[in-house]
C-alpha cells in the first residue's frame, strides 16, 4: 500500500469541502463543508505519519489537536449562527453581509 492513494483521497475530500463551502446557501452546510476540508487535512497528517520511515506518531498527535480545534470551531460557529439567526431570522449566507461597504 502506497502513500499516494491516501493523499489523493485527501485531495478529493478537500475539493468536495471547498466546493460546498463556496456554493452552499445554508450556513450550517458551509460549516459542515469546512469540517470536510479539515478531515481531508487530517487524512494527510495521519498518512504521512504512517508512511514515514520509521513511523512518526507526531502526525497523529497533530491530527488529534486538529480535531480538538475543529470541535471548538464548530461550537463557536454554531453559537454565532444561532445569534445571527435570532437577529435576522435567517440562516442564509446571502444575508451575512454586515461587513459590506
Amino acid at each position, binding site marked *: 500500500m502506497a502513500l499516494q492513494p491516501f493523499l489523493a483521497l485527501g485531495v478529493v475530500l478537500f475539493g468536495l469541502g471547498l*466546493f460546498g463551502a463556496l456554493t452552499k446557501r445554508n450556513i*450550517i452546510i458551509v460549516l*459542515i463543508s469546512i469540517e470536510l476540508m479539515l478531515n481531508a487535512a487530517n487524512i494527510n497528517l*495521519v498518512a504521512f505519519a*504512517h508512511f514515514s520511515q520509521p513511523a512518526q506518531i507526531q502526525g497523529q*498527535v497533530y491530527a*488529534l489537536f486538529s480535531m480538538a480545534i475543529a470541535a471548538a470551531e464548530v461550537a463557536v460557529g454554531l*453559537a454565532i449562527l444561532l445569534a445571527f439567526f435570532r437577529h435576522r431570522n435567517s440562516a442564509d449566507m446571502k444575508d451575512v453581509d454586515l461587513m459590506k461597504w
Partner: protein
Amino acid sequence: MIFGIPITGQTITYFLLALIIMISGVMLMSLQKVMHMAVALGGVFLGVAGIFILLGADFLGMAQILIYAGAITILMVFALMLTQRGDDTESPPTNSWRVGGVLVFVVVLCAAFLYVLRGTAWPVTQSAVDPYTQPSVVLLAQSIFHTYTVPFELVSVLLTVALVGAVVIARKEEE
C-alpha cells in the same frame, strides 16, 4: 494488480472506504433535504474513521467516530432543526453560473494537486506491514502526556474558552 496496485486485503479495504467517502461526499453536496445531508455527513466521517484505522491510528479512528460521526453530526442536526423554517430543503444557489464556476475552479485545483502528487518523488512510499513498534495508543499517550504536555493543556484551555464563548454568543440578549 489493478492500475499497478497489488490487490491485498488492505487495498480492497482502502478502495471500499474511499468509495464510501466519495459517494457520501457527493451526496452531501447534491442532496436537497438537509436531514439527508446530515446522514451523508455521517457516512463521510465514518469512512474517514475507517481510513484512520487502516493507517494504524486506532485511537484517532475511534475519536473520529466519537467526535465527528457522533457529536458533531448530532450538533449539526440540532442546529439544522433549530434554524428550520417550514421547508427543510436547502435553497438552491442564486445563480447557477457561480456553481459552475466554482466547480471548474475546484476541479482544476484538485487536478493540479493530483498532478503534483504524481509528479513528486516522495521519499517514502511503502511502509512496513506494522510500522509502529508499540500499539499506537501507547505511543500517542506517551507523546501527548509527556512530550506535548503544554500544548495539550493549552488545547484544553482553548476548548474551555470556546465553550464559554459559545455560550456567551448564543445566549439570548437580556432586554
